Protein backbone atom coordinates (compact mmCIF):
# COMPACT_ATOMS: atom_id res chain seq x y z
CA UNK A 1 0.00 0.00 0.00
CA UNK A 2 2.73 2.40 0.98
CA UNK A 3 4.71 1.41 -2.07
CA UNK A 4 1.71 1.94 -4.31
CA UNK A 5 1.25 5.34 -2.74
CA UNK A 6 4.82 6.18 -3.57
CA UNK A 7 4.66 4.87 -7.12
CA UNK A 8 1.57 6.81 -8.08
CA UNK A 9 2.57 9.95 -6.16
CA UNK A 10 -0.66 9.92 -4.16
CA UNK A 11 0.46 12.38 -1.50
CA UNK A 12 1.95 14.60 -4.10
CA UNK A 13 -1.29 14.73 -6.08
CA UNK A 14 -3.23 15.43 -2.91
CA UNK A 15 -1.00 18.38 -2.15
CA UNK A 16 -1.26 19.68 -5.67
CA UNK A 17 -5.03 19.46 -5.66
CA UNK A 18 -5.18 21.34 -2.38
CA UNK A 19 -3.08 24.19 -3.69
CA UNK A 20 -5.08 24.21 -6.90
CA UNK A 21 -8.24 24.55 -4.87
CA UNK A 22 -6.75 27.53 -3.11
CA UNK A 23 -5.60 28.93 -6.41
CA UNK A 24 -9.13 29.15 -7.77
CA UNK A 25 -10.89 30.10 -4.55
CA UNK A 26 -11.52 33.67 -3.43
CA UNK A 27 -8.68 35.60 -1.90
CA UNK A 28 -8.96 37.11 1.53
CA UNK A 29 -6.72 40.09 0.98
CA UNK A 30 -8.11 43.35 2.28
CA UNK A 31 -7.38 46.00 -0.34
CA UNK A 32 -6.78 48.60 2.32
CA UNK A 33 -5.88 51.94 0.96
CA UNK A 34 -7.56 51.54 -2.40
CA UNK A 35 -10.96 50.07 -1.87
CA UNK A 36 -11.51 48.77 1.60
CA UNK A 37 -10.85 49.81 5.14
CA UNK A 38 -11.04 48.07 8.46
CA UNK A 39 -13.19 49.81 11.05
CA UNK A 40 -12.15 48.76 14.53
CA UNK A 41 -14.39 47.77 17.40
CA UNK A 42 -15.69 50.30 19.86
CA UNK A 43 -13.19 49.09 22.45
CA UNK A 44 -10.32 50.03 20.12
CA UNK A 45 -7.93 52.62 21.49
CA UNK A 46 -6.96 54.98 18.72
CA UNK A 47 -6.59 58.73 18.50
CA UNK A 48 -8.27 60.51 21.42
CA UNK A 49 -11.35 62.64 21.12
CA UNK A 50 -12.51 65.47 23.31
CA UNK A 51 -16.26 65.30 23.64
CA UNK A 52 -19.04 67.78 24.08
CA UNK A 53 -22.30 67.26 25.87
CA UNK A 54 -25.67 67.27 24.17
CA UNK A 55 -25.89 71.08 24.32
CA UNK A 56 -22.59 71.46 22.59
CA UNK A 57 -20.59 72.42 25.70
CA UNK A 58 -17.08 71.12 26.15
CA UNK A 59 -17.05 68.48 28.81
CA UNK A 60 -13.43 69.08 29.74
CA UNK A 61 -12.96 71.06 32.91
CA UNK A 62 -9.16 71.10 32.70
CA UNK A 63 -8.75 69.24 35.98
CA UNK A 64 -5.40 67.90 34.70
CA UNK A 65 -6.09 64.43 36.08
CA UNK A 66 -5.35 62.95 32.69
CA UNK A 67 -2.02 64.72 32.53
CA UNK A 68 -1.19 63.46 36.02
CA UNK A 69 -2.11 59.87 35.35
CA UNK A 70 -0.46 59.67 31.97
CA UNK A 71 2.48 57.27 32.22
CA UNK A 72 4.44 58.98 29.49
CA UNK A 73 3.38 62.47 30.44
CA UNK A 74 2.36 63.26 26.93
CA UNK A 75 -0.68 65.36 27.81
CA UNK A 76 -0.27 69.07 28.43
CA UNK A 77 -3.22 70.90 29.96
CA UNK A 78 -3.20 74.61 30.79
CA UNK A 79 -6.47 75.71 32.40
CA UNK A 80 -8.10 79.09 32.26
CA UNK A 81 -11.20 80.69 33.60
CA UNK A 82 -14.20 80.27 31.38
CA UNK A 83 -15.53 83.71 30.85
CA UNK A 84 -17.79 82.65 28.07
CA UNK A 85 -17.94 83.92 24.57
CA UNK A 86 -19.61 86.99 23.35
CA UNK A 87 -22.69 84.97 22.63
CA UNK A 88 -23.84 84.06 26.11
CA UNK A 89 -26.23 81.50 24.78
CA UNK A 90 -23.45 79.21 23.66
CA UNK A 91 -21.32 78.50 26.69
CA UNK A 92 -17.95 76.97 26.06
CA UNK A 93 -17.67 74.62 28.96
CA UNK A 94 -19.83 72.92 31.51
CA UNK A 95 -18.25 74.83 34.37
CA UNK A 96 -16.27 78.02 34.66
CA UNK A 97 -12.96 76.33 34.17
CA UNK A 98 -11.79 75.29 30.76
CA UNK A 99 -8.61 74.17 29.01
CA UNK A 100 -6.70 76.94 27.34
CA UNK A 101 -4.24 74.50 25.87
CA UNK A 102 -4.91 70.79 25.51
CA UNK A 103 -2.20 68.97 23.67
CA UNK A 104 -1.39 65.31 23.31
CA UNK A 105 2.05 64.43 22.07
CA UNK A 106 1.26 61.42 19.90
CA UNK A 107 4.91 60.52 19.52
CA UNK A 108 5.06 59.67 23.19
CA UNK A 109 1.51 58.46 23.74
CA UNK A 110 1.21 54.74 24.11
CA UNK A 111 -2.57 54.57 23.86
CA UNK A 112 -3.00 52.90 27.26
CA UNK A 113 -6.32 54.57 27.96
CA UNK A 114 -5.50 55.72 31.51
CA UNK A 115 -6.59 59.26 30.68
CA UNK A 116 -9.97 57.91 29.71
CA UNK A 117 -10.28 56.18 33.09
CA UNK A 118 -9.13 59.18 35.03
CA UNK A 119 -11.42 61.68 33.39
CA UNK A 120 -14.25 62.67 35.80
CA UNK A 121 -16.45 64.13 33.09
CA UNK A 122 -15.92 61.59 30.28
CA UNK A 123 -14.48 64.39 28.22
CA UNK A 124 -11.56 62.47 26.83
CA UNK A 125 -12.25 59.19 25.12
CA UNK A 126 -10.11 56.97 22.96
CA UNK A 127 -11.33 57.20 19.38
CA UNK A 128 -11.02 54.82 16.50
CA UNK A 129 -8.66 56.63 14.14
CA UNK A 130 -5.53 54.73 13.47
CA UNK A 131 -4.06 56.50 10.49
CA UNK A 132 -1.74 58.77 12.38
CA UNK A 133 1.30 58.82 10.14
CA UNK A 134 2.30 62.14 8.70
CA UNK A 135 5.14 63.88 6.97
CA UNK A 136 6.25 66.35 9.66
CA UNK A 137 6.55 66.16 13.40
CA UNK A 138 4.17 69.08 13.86
CA UNK A 139 1.14 67.03 13.13
CA UNK A 140 2.21 64.50 15.73
CA UNK A 141 0.98 66.89 18.39
CA UNK A 142 -2.79 66.76 18.56
CA UNK A 143 -4.09 70.10 19.78
CA UNK A 144 -7.47 70.95 21.17
CA UNK A 145 -8.97 71.95 17.87
CA UNK A 146 -8.05 68.65 16.29
CA UNK A 147 -9.29 66.66 19.23
CA UNK A 148 -12.62 68.46 19.30
CA UNK A 149 -13.37 67.91 15.63
CA UNK A 150 -15.96 65.21 15.19
CA UNK A 151 -14.69 62.07 13.52
CA UNK A 152 -15.86 60.21 10.44
CA UNK A 153 -16.99 57.27 12.50
CA UNK A 154 -19.57 58.11 15.13
CA UNK A 155 -19.08 56.64 18.58
CA UNK A 156 -22.30 54.65 18.37
CA UNK A 157 -21.14 52.83 15.26
CA UNK A 158 -20.54 49.20 15.94
CA UNK A 159 -17.09 48.28 14.72
CA UNK A 160 -15.44 45.14 13.46
CA UNK A 161 -16.29 45.63 9.81
CA UNK A 162 -14.57 46.06 6.54
CA UNK A 163 -16.22 48.87 4.63
CA UNK A 164 -15.79 50.34 1.22
CA UNK A 165 -13.39 53.22 1.28
CA UNK A 166 -11.96 55.82 -1.00
CA UNK A 167 -8.31 56.63 -1.24
CA UNK A 168 -7.84 60.37 -1.40
CA UNK A 169 -4.50 61.90 -2.14
CA UNK A 170 -4.23 65.64 -2.45
CA UNK A 171 -2.23 68.57 -1.18
CA UNK A 172 -3.45 68.08 2.37
CA UNK A 173 -2.06 64.60 2.50
CA UNK A 174 -3.21 61.08 2.17
CA UNK A 175 -6.53 59.96 3.53
CA UNK A 176 -8.70 56.91 3.33
CA UNK A 177 -12.35 57.92 3.59
CA UNK A 178 -14.67 55.14 4.70
CA UNK A 179 -18.16 54.69 3.36
CA UNK A 180 -20.16 53.42 6.31
CA UNK A 181 -23.18 52.22 4.41
CA UNK A 182 -21.59 49.15 2.83
CA UNK A 183 -20.07 47.00 5.45
CA UNK A 184 -19.09 43.39 5.62
CA UNK A 185 -17.46 41.06 8.06
CA UNK A 186 -13.88 40.39 7.10
CA UNK A 187 -13.97 36.62 7.24
Amino acid at each position, binding site marked *: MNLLKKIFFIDFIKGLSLTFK*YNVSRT*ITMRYPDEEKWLPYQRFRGLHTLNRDSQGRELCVACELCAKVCPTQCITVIPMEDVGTDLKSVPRGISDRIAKVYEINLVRCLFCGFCEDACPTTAIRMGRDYELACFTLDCAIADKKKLLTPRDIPAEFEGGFVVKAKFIRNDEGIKVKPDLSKKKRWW
Partner: protein
Amino acid sequence: MPDVNTLIEVALIIVKVVIVSMILFSLPLPLTWLERKIAGHIQLRLGPFRVGPHGVLQPLADMIKLMFKEDITPYKADKWLFRLSPIVAMVPAFAVYATIPFGNTVTVPFINKEISLHIADMNVGILYVLAIGGITVYGIMLGGWASNSKYALLGGIRASAQMVSYEIALTFSCVGVVMIANSLSLVDIVHTQKGAILGILPNWNIFYQPLGFIIFLIAALAETNRIPFDLPEDEGTLAAGYHVEYSGMRFAFFMLTEYLAMVTVSVLSVILFFGGWNSPPLVPETLNNLIPPIFWFIGKVAVFIYFFMWLRFTLPRYRYDQLMTIGWKILLPLSLLNILITGLLLI
Protein backbone atom coordinates in the same frame (compact mmCIF):
# COMPACT_ATOMS: atom_id res chain seq x y z
CA MET B 1 28.00 37.03 -55.75
CA PRO B 2 25.20 34.97 -54.25
CA ASP B 3 21.83 35.05 -55.93
CA VAL B 4 18.63 36.53 -54.56
CA ASN B 5 17.30 33.28 -53.15
CA THR B 6 20.32 32.82 -50.95
CA LEU B 7 20.03 36.36 -49.74
CA ILE B 8 16.37 35.86 -48.85
CA GLU B 9 17.31 32.67 -47.08
CA VAL B 10 19.97 34.45 -45.02
CA ALA B 11 17.67 37.36 -44.30
CA LEU B 12 14.99 34.95 -43.11
CA ILE B 13 17.40 33.31 -40.73
CA ILE B 14 18.50 36.64 -39.34
CA VAL B 15 14.88 37.72 -38.92
CA LYS B 16 14.08 34.47 -37.14
CA VAL B 17 17.03 34.86 -34.78
CA VAL B 18 16.09 38.43 -33.98
CA ILE B 19 12.44 37.60 -33.39
CA VAL B 20 13.20 34.61 -31.20
CA SER B 21 15.71 36.47 -29.09
CA MET B 22 13.39 39.44 -28.71
CA ILE B 23 10.63 37.16 -27.51
CA LEU B 24 12.98 35.39 -25.16
CA PHE B 25 14.25 38.65 -23.75
CA SER B 26 10.77 39.92 -23.03
CA LEU B 27 9.31 36.61 -21.89
CA PRO B 28 10.54 36.79 -18.27
CA LEU B 29 8.56 39.99 -17.73
CA PRO B 30 5.10 38.44 -17.97
CA LEU B 31 6.41 35.30 -16.34
CA THR B 32 7.53 37.09 -13.19
CA TRP B 33 4.12 38.72 -12.96
CA LEU B 34 2.42 35.38 -13.52
CA GLU B 35 4.55 33.64 -10.93
CA ARG B 36 3.80 36.26 -8.31
CA LYS B 37 0.12 36.18 -9.13
CA ILE B 38 0.01 32.41 -8.84
CA ALA B 39 1.98 32.54 -5.63
CA GLY B 40 -0.47 35.05 -4.27
CA HIS B 41 -3.59 33.19 -5.24
CA ILE B 42 -2.31 29.88 -3.92
CA GLN B 43 -1.70 31.59 -0.60
CA LEU B 44 -5.12 33.31 -0.81
CA ARG B 45 -3.47 36.63 -1.48
CA LEU B 46 -3.81 38.83 -4.51
CA GLY B 47 -0.20 39.27 -5.51
CA PRO B 48 0.95 42.50 -7.11
CA PHE B 49 -2.02 44.79 -7.55
CA ARG B 50 -1.03 48.43 -7.47
CA VAL B 51 1.02 49.13 -10.60
CA GLY B 52 -1.45 49.08 -13.43
CA PRO B 53 -4.64 47.04 -13.55
CA HIS B 54 -4.09 43.86 -11.55
CA GLY B 55 -0.44 44.79 -11.29
CA VAL B 56 0.47 43.94 -14.86
CA LEU B 57 2.95 46.76 -15.03
CA GLN B 58 4.80 45.52 -11.94
CA PRO B 59 7.53 43.74 -13.98
CA LEU B 60 8.24 46.95 -15.84
CA ALA B 61 8.57 48.79 -12.57
CA ASP B 62 10.87 46.07 -11.29
CA MET B 63 12.93 46.28 -14.43
CA ILE B 64 13.36 50.02 -14.10
CA LYS B 65 14.30 49.58 -10.46
CA LEU B 66 16.88 46.93 -11.33
CA MET B 67 18.35 49.07 -14.07
CA PHE B 68 18.96 51.99 -11.77
CA LYS B 69 20.26 50.05 -8.81
CA GLU B 70 23.87 50.40 -7.85
CA ASP B 71 26.05 47.70 -9.28
CA ILE B 72 28.08 46.41 -6.37
CA THR B 73 31.24 44.39 -6.70
CA PRO B 74 32.22 42.85 -3.39
CA TYR B 75 35.53 43.52 -1.76
CA LYS B 76 38.26 41.13 -2.92
CA ALA B 77 35.96 39.54 -5.46
CA ASP B 78 37.41 38.22 -8.68
CA LYS B 79 36.24 41.21 -10.69
CA TRP B 80 36.40 39.81 -14.19
CA LEU B 81 34.68 36.58 -13.35
CA PHE B 82 32.15 38.37 -11.22
CA ARG B 83 31.18 40.54 -14.16
CA LEU B 84 31.38 37.75 -16.67
CA SER B 85 29.41 35.02 -14.97
CA PRO B 86 25.85 36.42 -15.40
CA ILE B 87 26.53 36.55 -19.11
CA VAL B 88 28.04 33.07 -19.06
CA ALA B 89 24.83 31.90 -17.46
CA MET B 90 22.61 33.76 -19.88
CA VAL B 91 24.15 32.94 -23.26
CA PRO B 92 23.51 29.16 -23.23
CA ALA B 93 19.94 29.78 -22.12
CA PHE B 94 19.43 31.65 -25.37
CA ALA B 95 21.63 29.41 -27.50
CA VAL B 96 19.43 26.41 -26.74
CA TYR B 97 16.63 27.91 -28.81
CA ALA B 98 18.64 27.60 -32.03
CA THR B 99 17.37 24.07 -32.56
CA ILE B 100 13.96 24.16 -30.96
CA PRO B 101 11.07 23.88 -33.44
CA PHE B 102 8.10 26.03 -32.53
CA GLY B 103 5.73 24.89 -35.17
CA ASN B 104 5.17 23.53 -38.61
CA THR B 105 6.03 25.38 -41.78
CA VAL B 106 4.28 28.66 -42.43
CA THR B 107 3.82 30.39 -45.76
CA VAL B 108 4.85 34.00 -45.73
CA PRO B 109 2.44 36.08 -47.83
CA PHE B 110 4.70 38.58 -49.64
CA ILE B 111 7.67 36.57 -50.78
CA ASN B 112 5.54 33.46 -51.16
CA LYS B 113 7.95 31.20 -49.42
CA GLU B 114 7.53 28.32 -47.03
CA ILE B 115 9.48 28.91 -43.87
CA SER B 116 9.91 26.45 -41.06
CA LEU B 117 9.46 27.72 -37.55
CA HIS B 118 12.85 26.71 -36.25
CA ILE B 119 16.19 28.40 -36.69
CA ALA B 120 18.14 25.24 -37.49
CA ASP B 121 17.32 21.58 -37.59
CA MET B 122 20.47 19.87 -36.44
CA ASN B 123 20.62 16.14 -36.69
CA VAL B 124 21.97 16.04 -33.15
CA GLY B 125 19.35 18.46 -31.90
CA ILE B 126 18.51 16.92 -28.57
CA LEU B 127 22.15 16.33 -27.69
CA TYR B 128 22.86 19.94 -28.54
CA VAL B 129 20.06 21.17 -26.33
CA LEU B 130 21.11 19.07 -23.39
CA ALA B 131 24.79 19.89 -23.81
CA ILE B 132 24.30 23.63 -24.13
CA GLY B 133 21.70 23.64 -21.40
CA GLY B 134 24.22 22.07 -19.06
CA ILE B 135 26.64 24.93 -19.55
CA THR B 136 24.42 27.35 -17.67
CA VAL B 137 25.80 25.92 -14.46
CA TYR B 138 29.14 27.62 -15.15
CA GLY B 139 27.58 31.00 -14.69
CA ILE B 140 26.17 29.88 -11.37
CA MET B 141 29.37 28.24 -10.18
CA LEU B 142 31.71 31.01 -11.27
CA GLY B 143 29.36 33.66 -9.96
CA GLY B 144 29.30 31.87 -6.63
CA TRP B 145 33.05 31.47 -6.54
CA ALA B 146 33.91 34.96 -7.73
CA SER B 147 31.69 36.65 -5.15
CA ASN B 148 34.16 35.88 -2.38
CA SER B 149 31.32 35.07 -0.04
CA LYS B 150 30.79 31.81 1.74
CA TYR B 151 27.07 31.60 1.01
CA ALA B 152 27.63 32.23 -2.67
CA LEU B 153 30.45 29.70 -2.75
CA LEU B 154 28.27 27.07 -1.09
CA GLY B 155 25.52 27.82 -3.58
CA GLY B 156 27.94 27.39 -6.46
CA ILE B 157 29.28 24.11 -5.11
CA ARG B 158 25.78 22.79 -4.57
CA ALA B 159 24.78 23.81 -8.07
CA SER B 160 27.69 21.99 -9.64
CA ALA B 161 27.19 18.75 -7.74
CA GLN B 162 23.46 18.85 -8.39
CA MET B 163 23.97 19.48 -12.07
CA VAL B 164 26.41 16.61 -12.51
CA SER B 165 24.12 14.24 -10.64
CA TYR B 166 20.92 15.04 -12.48
CA GLU B 167 22.28 15.56 -15.97
CA ILE B 168 22.80 11.81 -16.29
CA ALA B 169 19.23 10.96 -15.38
CA LEU B 170 17.93 13.74 -17.63
CA THR B 171 19.83 12.46 -20.64
CA PHE B 172 18.92 8.86 -20.01
CA SER B 173 15.24 9.72 -19.74
CA CYS B 174 15.47 11.30 -23.20
CA VAL B 175 17.06 8.18 -24.64
CA GLY B 176 13.73 6.33 -24.60
CA VAL B 177 12.15 9.03 -26.75
CA VAL B 178 15.08 8.97 -29.12
CA MET B 179 14.74 5.21 -29.44
CA ILE B 180 11.07 5.53 -30.38
CA ALA B 181 11.68 8.38 -32.83
CA ASN B 182 14.79 6.78 -34.28
CA SER B 183 16.37 10.19 -34.57
CA LEU B 184 18.15 12.80 -32.49
CA SER B 185 16.57 15.66 -34.38
CA LEU B 186 13.83 17.47 -32.49
CA VAL B 187 11.81 18.04 -35.65
CA ASP B 188 11.80 14.33 -36.42
CA ILE B 189 10.82 13.56 -32.85
CA VAL B 190 7.77 15.79 -33.20
CA HIS B 191 6.89 14.33 -36.59
CA THR B 192 6.79 10.82 -35.18
CA GLN B 193 4.13 11.89 -32.69
CA LYS B 194 1.45 12.62 -35.28
CA GLY B 195 -1.77 10.69 -35.36
CA ALA B 196 -3.65 8.83 -32.69
CA ILE B 197 -3.69 5.62 -30.74
CA LEU B 198 -6.97 3.75 -31.25
CA GLY B 199 -8.48 6.95 -32.58
CA ILE B 200 -8.90 8.49 -29.14
CA LEU B 201 -5.61 9.05 -27.44
CA PRO B 202 -3.08 11.29 -29.15
CA ASN B 203 -0.01 9.48 -30.37
CA TRP B 204 2.24 11.26 -27.93
CA ASN B 205 5.30 9.85 -26.30
CA ILE B 206 3.87 10.36 -22.82
CA PHE B 207 1.70 7.29 -23.38
CA TYR B 208 4.68 5.22 -24.41
CA GLN B 209 7.12 6.67 -21.92
CA PRO B 210 5.29 7.53 -18.69
CA LEU B 211 8.25 6.53 -16.53
CA GLY B 212 10.63 8.42 -18.79
CA PHE B 213 8.45 11.49 -18.55
CA ILE B 214 8.37 11.43 -14.76
CA ILE B 215 12.14 11.03 -14.59
CA PHE B 216 12.58 13.78 -17.14
CA LEU B 217 10.35 16.11 -15.19
CA ILE B 218 12.07 15.54 -11.86
CA ALA B 219 15.55 15.75 -13.31
CA ALA B 220 14.62 18.86 -15.26
CA LEU B 221 13.33 20.49 -12.08
CA ALA B 222 16.67 19.80 -10.47
CA GLU B 223 18.54 20.97 -13.52
CA THR B 224 16.76 24.32 -13.62
CA ASN B 225 17.09 24.86 -9.86
CA ARG B 226 13.37 25.05 -9.34
CA ILE B 227 11.67 24.10 -6.13
CA PRO B 228 11.75 21.43 -4.70
CA PHE B 229 15.38 21.25 -5.81
CA ASP B 230 16.45 24.87 -5.56
CA LEU B 231 19.30 24.11 -3.19
CA PRO B 232 21.78 26.48 -4.88
CA GLU B 233 19.66 29.48 -3.95
CA ASP B 234 18.18 28.11 -0.78
CA GLU B 235 16.78 31.17 0.96
CA GLY B 236 16.47 29.39 4.25
CA THR B 237 20.05 28.35 4.74
CA LEU B 238 22.12 30.20 2.15
CA ALA B 239 20.46 33.63 2.14
CA ALA B 240 20.14 33.67 -1.64
CA GLY B 241 22.84 31.22 -2.63
CA TYR B 242 24.97 31.97 -5.63
CA HIS B 243 23.53 35.39 -6.44
CA VAL B 244 23.62 36.76 -2.92
CA GLU B 245 26.25 39.37 -3.83
CA TYR B 246 24.69 40.45 -7.09
CA SER B 247 22.59 43.52 -7.60
CA GLY B 248 21.11 45.53 -10.40
CA MET B 249 21.24 44.25 -13.93
CA ARG B 250 23.62 41.38 -13.17
CA PHE B 251 21.09 39.99 -10.76
CA ALA B 252 18.43 40.54 -13.42
CA PHE B 253 20.49 38.44 -15.82
CA PHE B 254 20.47 35.58 -13.36
CA MET B 255 16.72 35.87 -12.95
CA LEU B 256 16.33 35.98 -16.73
CA THR B 257 18.39 32.81 -17.02
CA GLU B 258 16.29 31.08 -14.45
CA TYR B 259 13.00 31.90 -16.13
CA LEU B 260 14.36 31.00 -19.54
CA ALA B 261 15.54 27.68 -18.16
CA MET B 262 12.01 27.03 -16.95
CA VAL B 263 10.63 27.87 -20.39
CA THR B 264 13.23 25.65 -22.01
CA VAL B 265 12.27 22.74 -19.83
CA SER B 266 8.58 23.27 -20.59
CA VAL B 267 9.30 23.47 -24.30
CA LEU B 268 11.44 20.35 -24.17
CA SER B 269 8.82 18.34 -22.33
CA VAL B 270 6.21 19.43 -24.85
CA ILE B 271 8.42 18.48 -27.76
CA LEU B 272 9.65 15.22 -26.35
CA PHE B 273 6.55 13.91 -24.62
CA PHE B 274 3.50 15.92 -25.63
CA GLY B 275 3.64 15.95 -29.37
CA GLY B 276 5.03 19.41 -30.01
CA TRP B 277 2.67 21.36 -32.25
CA ASN B 278 0.43 18.36 -33.05
CA SER B 279 -3.15 18.86 -32.02
CA PRO B 280 -5.07 16.17 -30.12
CA PRO B 281 -6.99 13.86 -32.47
CA LEU B 282 -10.51 14.51 -31.20
CA VAL B 283 -10.41 18.18 -32.09
CA PRO B 284 -12.88 18.86 -34.96
CA GLU B 285 -11.39 19.58 -38.35
CA THR B 286 -12.75 23.11 -38.65
CA LEU B 287 -11.23 24.14 -35.36
CA ASN B 288 -8.00 22.51 -36.40
CA ASN B 289 -7.88 24.55 -39.57
CA LEU B 290 -8.65 27.67 -37.62
CA ILE B 291 -5.88 27.36 -35.06
CA PRO B 292 -2.34 27.31 -36.43
CA PRO B 293 -0.13 24.57 -34.97
CA ILE B 294 2.07 27.07 -33.18
CA PHE B 295 -0.81 27.96 -30.91
CA TRP B 296 -1.17 24.38 -29.83
CA PHE B 297 2.50 24.47 -29.04
CA ILE B 298 2.26 27.70 -27.06
CA GLY B 299 -0.78 26.41 -25.20
CA LYS B 300 0.96 23.24 -24.14
CA VAL B 301 4.02 25.18 -23.05
CA ALA B 302 1.83 27.52 -21.05
CA VAL B 303 0.26 24.58 -19.25
CA PHE B 304 3.70 23.33 -18.34
CA ILE B 305 4.86 26.73 -17.13
CA TYR B 306 1.77 26.94 -14.96
CA PHE B 307 2.53 23.46 -13.66
CA PHE B 308 6.05 24.43 -12.66
CA MET B 309 4.80 27.50 -10.84
CA TRP B 310 2.06 25.52 -9.21
CA LEU B 311 4.63 23.00 -8.05
CA ARG B 312 6.82 25.71 -6.61
CA PHE B 313 4.16 26.84 -4.18
CA THR B 314 3.09 23.35 -3.23
CA LEU B 315 6.23 21.50 -2.33
CA PRO B 316 8.82 22.14 0.34
CA ARG B 317 12.51 22.07 -0.41
CA TYR B 318 14.48 18.84 -0.17
CA ARG B 319 17.50 18.44 2.03
CA TYR B 320 20.81 18.13 0.25
CA ASP B 321 21.39 14.48 1.11
CA GLN B 322 17.84 13.67 0.02
CA LEU B 323 18.57 15.38 -3.27
CA MET B 324 21.63 13.22 -3.83
CA THR B 325 19.77 10.08 -2.79
CA ILE B 326 16.96 10.78 -5.23
CA GLY B 327 19.38 11.52 -8.02
CA TRP B 328 21.75 8.61 -7.72
CA LYS B 329 19.76 5.89 -6.01
CA ILE B 330 16.30 6.34 -7.52
CA LEU B 331 16.31 8.31 -10.74
CA LEU B 332 19.45 6.84 -12.27
CA PRO B 333 18.45 3.15 -11.87
CA LEU B 334 14.92 3.96 -12.94
CA SER B 335 16.10 5.70 -16.09
CA LEU B 336 18.32 2.73 -16.93
CA LEU B 337 15.33 0.47 -16.36
CA ASN B 338 13.30 2.69 -18.65
CA ILE B 339 15.85 2.32 -21.44
CA LEU B 340 15.86 -1.44 -20.92
CA ILE B 341 12.07 -1.72 -21.07
CA THR B 342 11.87 0.51 -24.13
CA GLY B 343 14.51 -1.56 -25.86
CA LEU B 344 12.72 -4.79 -25.06
CA LEU B 345 9.39 -3.43 -26.28
CA LEU B 346 10.88 -2.12 -29.48
CA ILE B 347 12.43 -5.41 -30.48
